[in-house]
């Protein structure tokens, strides 16, 4: 791709590296995603009751319509109940 697009190989290398390291760093500690999940639960629980057993937090590569691939953190959080706070305020 570098040859075709005429981009400097340095820039290609840098972009590839940044991408790799996002995943490497998350992999080094298997607890990484668990830590994020635990913090998400803590914050969201003030507002709603969520199904933590069914909750999923994932780091993945996503292709966008502009042709670029990005790393994205996705969280799927089933809501059991929304707390009756903040309403009408």
């Amino acid at each position: 791709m570098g040859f075709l697009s005429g981009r400097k190989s340095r820039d290609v290398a840098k972009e590839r590296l940044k991408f790799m390291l996002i995943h490497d760093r998350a992999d080094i500690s298997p607890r990484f995603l668990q830590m994020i999940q635990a913090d998400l639960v803590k914050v969201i629980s003030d507002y709603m009751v969520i199904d933590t057993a069914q909750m999923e937090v994932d780091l993945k590569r996503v292709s966008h319509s502009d042709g670029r691939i990005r790393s994205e953190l996705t969280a799927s959080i089933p809501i059991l109940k929304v707390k009756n706070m903040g309403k009408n305020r």
Partner: protein
Amino acid sequence: MGEVIVVTSGKGGVGKTTTVANVGTALAMRGKKVVLMDADIGLRNLDVVMGLENRIVYDLVDVVEGVCRLKQALIRDKRYEGLYLMPAAQTKDKNAVTPEQMQKLTNELKESFDYILVDCPAGIEQGFRNAIAGAEKAVVVTVPEVSAIRDADRIIGLLSAHGIAEPMLVVNRVRYDMVRRGDMINIEDTTDILGIELAGVVPDDEKIVISTNRGEPVVADPKSAAGKAYRDVAARLMGEDVPFAEKTESKGFVSKLKALFGRNG
């Protein structure tokens, strides 16, 4: 009380041993008492780079196993006052030493030396864990290539998991001509990606090959660009404020680097 500094990289062949030999020699040239310790058991080569291979009688494993006393295994480098080599065993494997034994050994050396530089084996296995066991500081060596930087990042994470936070970075074999063309990852990119402090930038220098052929550290050569870079690394390890960037022909790049490192250096 001396300081134990492990020199590590993850990836092999990026210049760990050359860095240990040259930075250690430079420290000795500055009047420090230094031990170069080869922790690459089974694949020793620090002795060869230093040109001391014919003087080995005992090695690190002999000390650990009680075959000899610590002082007996230390080889004094007659060329540089205060410089000693602790060779690795060539016939044993990486499990011949435990992290506890390594710690005990470095603790003992700390009492009589200013710096103990540990040459760490490549990889992240037991040999790595043994080599870092007694260290309180680390120097991570990399070259400006995707694979080496990726491995350096991994090593930085592992060092931190083992309680060695904030290692310093040596970027080895930099080719400024390629950096200028935009065909080599530059120093700014590398430190930006790895997020650790820079201890030195060593230009690619054929004098390294020549000096290794001869078994004479390149820091002794006042004309070598790499030698100067290693002397600067030694000075920074001693806590001196040495400005970065001199070895390039491009004015734009020099000023850019100076601007970049002005705040650090």
